[in-house]
């Protein structure tokens, strides 16, 4: 199956945007991906082996977390997995200070 890699994680896949792996399930595919690119492991999984909360994995157009079998879902060679970190935020919370310099807002 093909796994789509988001831009921030391509530093760990030799800049590849997609990686081809073999595996009968989503979990097997992810395991194969990490086996081929070990540096990804810490970015995708917590120390106890669970997907990090901000890492979304989609099987084609379906969020794997909400599939009946979740990561144990069966996949075929034509399926696509997409790893997509979450994007969110907002003005709540205390203002930050830029690492390079503080800002003065007009």
């Amino acid at each position, binding site marked *: 199956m093909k796994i789509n890699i988001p*831009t921030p994680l391509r530093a760990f896949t030799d800049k590849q945007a997609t990686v081809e792996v073999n595996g009968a399930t989503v979990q097997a595919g992810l395991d194969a991906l990490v086996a081929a690119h070990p540096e990804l492991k810490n970015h995708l999984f917590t120390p106890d082996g669970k997907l990090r909360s901000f890492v979304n994995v989609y099987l084609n157009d379906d969020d794997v977390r909400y599939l009946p079998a979740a990561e144990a879902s069966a996949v075929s060679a034509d399926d696509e997995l997409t790893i997509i970190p979450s994007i969110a*935020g907002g003005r709540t919370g205390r203002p930050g200070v830029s690492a390079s310099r503080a800002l003065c807002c007009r």
Partner: protein
Amino acid sequence: MKLHITQADYDALRAHGEETYPHECCGVMLGHAKDDGNHVAAIVRAGNTRTDSAHNRYNISPIELIKIQREGRKQGLDIVGFYHSHPDHPAMWSSTDFAEAHWFGCCYVITSVDKGKANLTNAFHLSGTTEDDKAFQQEEILITEAVGENA
């Protein structure tokens, strides 16, 4: 490192914030990452799924992000950043923005929209490679007349 963006895209992302005021707008920047910074070739508006608190929070659904990424790749473009607005609040990243930032190497653009009018727009590059060493670095916004200028 600078954010390279056309005047048209820059104006469009600021206008988006005015349109959604008093709610936060959000969108995706597509383009190319180069040695001198991220070059934006197109911006894509996204829906804010935080309808429960849209005046001070934003979230882009992963499936919308995936579809934007797919369309971008068809044009040879990658996700190089995101933008959102801060209604009646400074164009400065918040602790929420920082905690929710996971796209290393990408640029996060924030526009303050004061009483419905876009005011200051700032760009922050998310440096680092892990949640432990990540940092927002303010970067200059370089306005170009056309995509690819100053490349």
